[in-house]
C-alpha cells in the first residue's frame, strides 16, 4: 500500500529508539518480595509458606493448603539511588500482587495448586538497552518492571514430606520494522513511504522446584530451586528508499540489527528452616545461593549499515559501518544470601471460651545481599552495592470469617561504595554510590473451604 505520506527516513531511527528504550525487566518478587507476610519476614519463608506466595518461595508449601485461599495485594517501592551524592532518578516500582492456593486430595494424597502474579502499574514490561559504559544501577534500574506469572503444583506423599514445582513466565519482545519508498527532504508532504512493523510478544519460562520436610511438629526444613532465565530481545530494521534532496534522488539502504539480553534472573538454591520456638513464636531462616556469576551482559550488540549513492560534492559524509560492539564480560560473582524472619502472635483477643476472636501476628525480618557486581574499575559501569533489608509487618486474622489482612514495610539500605577507575583517561571517572529503598504494601486474603 502506497499513499501520500509525510514520513521520514528517521522514523526508522525513532522506531529503533522506541524499541530499544521500552523498559522491561525482571522482576519484583526477587527484588521486593511477594505477599506481605513473606515480605515482612525478610523472605525467610521457604520452610513456612502456604499462601499464594508459595508459588515463588517454595511451591511445596502449597500442599499444606486446605480449601481455596485467595490473595490480593499491592505494594509500592520507592527508590532513592545516588551517585556522587546526587539522586539519579531510578524509578520506583509498584503494582498488584494476586494469587491463589488451593488444596485437596487425589487418591488420598493431599495436593495443592497455586498461581501467583505481579502486574506492574506502569506497563507490562520495560527495557533499556544502554552502552556498557553508561552508568546504571544494574539490578534495580532496568529489572524492576515485568509481568510475572507463576503456576505450580504440589503433593504431600508422606506426612513429613511435601514436594512441588512449576513454571514461571516472563514476557519477551522481538521486533522488526521496514521502511521503503521515497522521502523528500525539503518537501515532507511529497514523501511517499511505507512502514511495516512486525513484533512478537512471547514468553520465556523457567522452572522452580521445592521440597518441605517436617522434622517434627515444631520444626521444618526446605530446599528450593529456581531456574535461570533472561529475555532475549531482538530488533531488526530495514530501510530502502529514495531520498529526494532538491532535484537529486539519492537511493539509500539502511540495515539495523540489535540484540540484547535483559531481565536476567540467576538460578538459585535456597535452604530454609522454620522453628516454632513457642506456640506463639516462630523463627525462620533461609540461606540462598544465587548464581549471579552466570550474569550475561545486557549490552546491545548492534550492527548498522548505511549505503547511499551520494553524488560527488554533496555536502554529506556517510559514516562507515558501525563497529561491532566488543562486549566486556560483566564478571559478576555468585552470592550467599542469608534471611531471617520472626513471627509472633500477640496473646489475647479471645472470647469468653478462650477461642481467638482475632489473631494479631507481628513480624520482623532481615536479609543481607552482598553485591555480586565487582568494582567497576574499567569501561563498564554496572552499579550496585551491598543491600541490607530490614522489614516489619503485622496482620489481623479473623478465624470465623476466614479472612486475613497483612501489611509490610521494608527498608533496604545500600551503604556507600566507591568506584576508582584504573585508567586516568576514563571519561566517567571515579564515583561513589549509595541508595535506599522503601517498600510498603498490604495483602488481603480469604479462605473458602
Amino acid at each position: 500500500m502506497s499513499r501520500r505520506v509525510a514520513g521520514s527516513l528517521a522514523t526508522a531511527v525513532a522506531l529503533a529508539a522506541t524499541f530499544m528504550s521500552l523498559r522491561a525487566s525482571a522482576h519484583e518478587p526477587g527484588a521486593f518480595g511477594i505477599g506481605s507476610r513473606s515480605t515482612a519476614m525478610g523472605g525467610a519463608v521457604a520452610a513456612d509458606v502456604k499462601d499464594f506466595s508459595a508459588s515463588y518461595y517454595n511451591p511445596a508449601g502449597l500442599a499444606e493448603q486446605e480449601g481455596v485461599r485467595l490473595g490480593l495485594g499491592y505494594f509500592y517501592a520507592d527508590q532513592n539511588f545516588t551517585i556522587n551524592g546526587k539522586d539519579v532518578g531510578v524509578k520506583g516500582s509498584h503494582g498488584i500482587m494476586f494469587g491463589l492456593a488451593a488444596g485437596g486430595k487425589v487418591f488420598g494424597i493431599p495436593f495443592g495448586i497455586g498461581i501467583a502474579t505481579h502486574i506492574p502499574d506502569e506497563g507490562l514490561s520495560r527495557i533499556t538497552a544502554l552502552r556498557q559504559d553508561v552508568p546504571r544501577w544494574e539490578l534495580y534500574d532496568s529489572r524492576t518492571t515485568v509481568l510475572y506469572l507463576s503456576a505450580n503444583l504440589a503433593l504431600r506423599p508422606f506426612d513429613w514430606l511435601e514436594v512441588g514445582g512449576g513454571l514461571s513466565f516472563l514476557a519477551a519482545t522481538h521486533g522488526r520494522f521496514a521502511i521503503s519508498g521515497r522521502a523528500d527532504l525539503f518537501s515532507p508532504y511529497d514523501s511517499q513511504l511505507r512502514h511495516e512493523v512486525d513484533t512478537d510478544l512471547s514468553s520465556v519460562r523457567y522452572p522452580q522446584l521445592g521440597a518441605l520436610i517436617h522434622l517434627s511438629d515444631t520444626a521444618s526444613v526446605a530446599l528450593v530451586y529456581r531456574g535461570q532465565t533472561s529475555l532475549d530481545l531482538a530488533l531488526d530494521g530495514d530501510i530502502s528508499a529514495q531520498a529526494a534532496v532538491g532535484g537529486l534522488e539519492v537511493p539509500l539502504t539502511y540495515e539495523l540489527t540489535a540484540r540484547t539480553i535483559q531481565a536476567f534472573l540467576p538460578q538459585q538454591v535456597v535452604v530454609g528452616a522454620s522453628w516454632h520456638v513457642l506456640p506463639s513464636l516462630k523463627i525462620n531462616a533461609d540461606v540462598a545461593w544465587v548464581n549471579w556469576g552466570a550474569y550475561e551482559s545486557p549490552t546491545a550488540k548492534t550492527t548498522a549499515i548505511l549505503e547511499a549513492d551520494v553524488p560527488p560534492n554533496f555536502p554529506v559524509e556517510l559514516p562507515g559501518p558501525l563497529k561491532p560492539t566488543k562486549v566486556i564480560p560483566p564478571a559478576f560473582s555468585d552470592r550467599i544470601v542469608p534471611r531471617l524472619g520472626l513471627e509472633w502472635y500477640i496473646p489475647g483477643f479471645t472470647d469468653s471460651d478462650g477461642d481467638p476472636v482475632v489473631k494479631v501476628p507481628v513480624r520482623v525480618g532481615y536479609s543481607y545481599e552482598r553485591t555480586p557486581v565487582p568494582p567497576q574499575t574499567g569501561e563498564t559501569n554496572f552499579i550496585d552495592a551491598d543491600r541490607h533489608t530490614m522489614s516489619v509487618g503485622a496482620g489481623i486474622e479473623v478465624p470465623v470469617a476466614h479472612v486475613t489482612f497483612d501489611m509490610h514495610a521494608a527498608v533496604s539500605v545500600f551503604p556507600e561504595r566507591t568506584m576508582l577507575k584504573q585508567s586516568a583517561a576514563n571519561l566517567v571517572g571515579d564515583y561513589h554510590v549509595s541508595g535506599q529503598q522503601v517498600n510498603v504494601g498490604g495483602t488481603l486474603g480469604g479462605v473458602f473451604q
Partner: protein
Amino acid sequence: MTSRRVWPARLGVRFGALAMVAAAGCATLADGAPGLDNPPSARAGPFRLLGPGELGQGRAAPFAMDVQKTSLRDPCILDIDGDPSTLEVEGYFAASDEDAGADANPTSIVRVGALDGRSFDRMPVTMLTATEAWEGGTVGAPSVIADGARRRLYYSAAGGIGLAESEDGQSFTSRDAPVIASVPWADGPPRSPSVVTLPNGSYRLFFEATQGGAAAIGEAKSTDGIAWDVLEEPALTHGPSGSLDASGVASPAATVATSAEGRKILYVYYSGKGDDGKRSITLAARFLAEPDAPLEKGNKSVYSPSGALEPREPSVIRFEDFTFLFTAQKRTKSSSDVVVTVGVSPGTIELPAPDPP
C-alpha cells in the same frame, strides 16, 4: 501474539533528515543521552558543541571565535583567578597579519576576555608580536599560566618554544632565546606548547615535534618554568593502525583535574590523526600520584566533527560543573576559513545564560 500493520507515517521528514545527518555525521555527544539522571562524569569529554542561545556577544554557536581578517586561532583559555566556581576567563589567540589568510603563519598573539567563560568580547588586544630574530617572524600557539596578575606566555616560533612574561598581565616581554630550542628525539624544533602547573608547584610542558616524519608529543619538566628538562623519549606517539591517532599526535593541551574521589589527574588533550587522515581531539592522562608515569591514552575521541574539518590546538578549561573545549578547525570541509569552536562536557549540562547575552 503477532501484529503486522502497514500504515502511512505522519512524521516530519525534516526531523528525519536531521536525525539521519545526526546518525551519519556528528561524532560528538548526542543531546539527551539515555541513562540515569546526574550520571557521573569526569567532565573530560565527550564534548557537545554549543548550540543556539548558548553563546553571547552576538556570536553564532558553536563558533566562539570567527575572525577571518586576522584568522584568529590556536586558542588558550585562562581562568583568571584559578577559581573554578567563577567563569571569567582570558582568551589568547594567534593572529595573522590582516588579510594574510589562514594559511599564513601567525605573527602576533592577542587577548580577549569573556565573563561567562566562552562569549569573548570583540576587542582583541595584541599581547605579543614576532620581534626576536629566533622567532623567524612568527609567534603562535599560546599557552598562558597565571600567578595573580603575573602572566607567563609560552608560544611557538620558528626557533622553538618561547617565553614572554608580564608582571601586570598587560605588557609582555619576550626572552631573547627560546626556552626549548631542540629536542633530543625530534627532527626539528618543538612547537605548540602547553604548560601546566602541578599541585606540587612544579611545571610540565607538553609540545609537538616531528619524529621520523610523524608528529609526536614531548614532555619537559621544570621547577621554575624557565629552565626545562626535556624527557629523552616522546610522551605520546602515534597509535597502531586503525586507531584514532595512527598517523600522528599533535598540538597538546594539558590541564589538571581532581576526580570525584579526590585523585589528581593530568589530562593531555591532543589532535590525533587516523589512517584515513581524519583528525579528532582525544586525550591521554595519568594520575598525579605518580607524576612521571606514562600517559595512558583514552582511545576515544572527545570531539570528532564530521568531515575533514581538521580540529587542532585544543584548549580545555574546567569549571565547577562543566568543562569547555575550544578547538581551532576549518569552518567547512572545503573552506579555508579557520574558526574556533567551543564544546561542553558533560553534554547534558544546561549552561548558565551567556553574559552578556
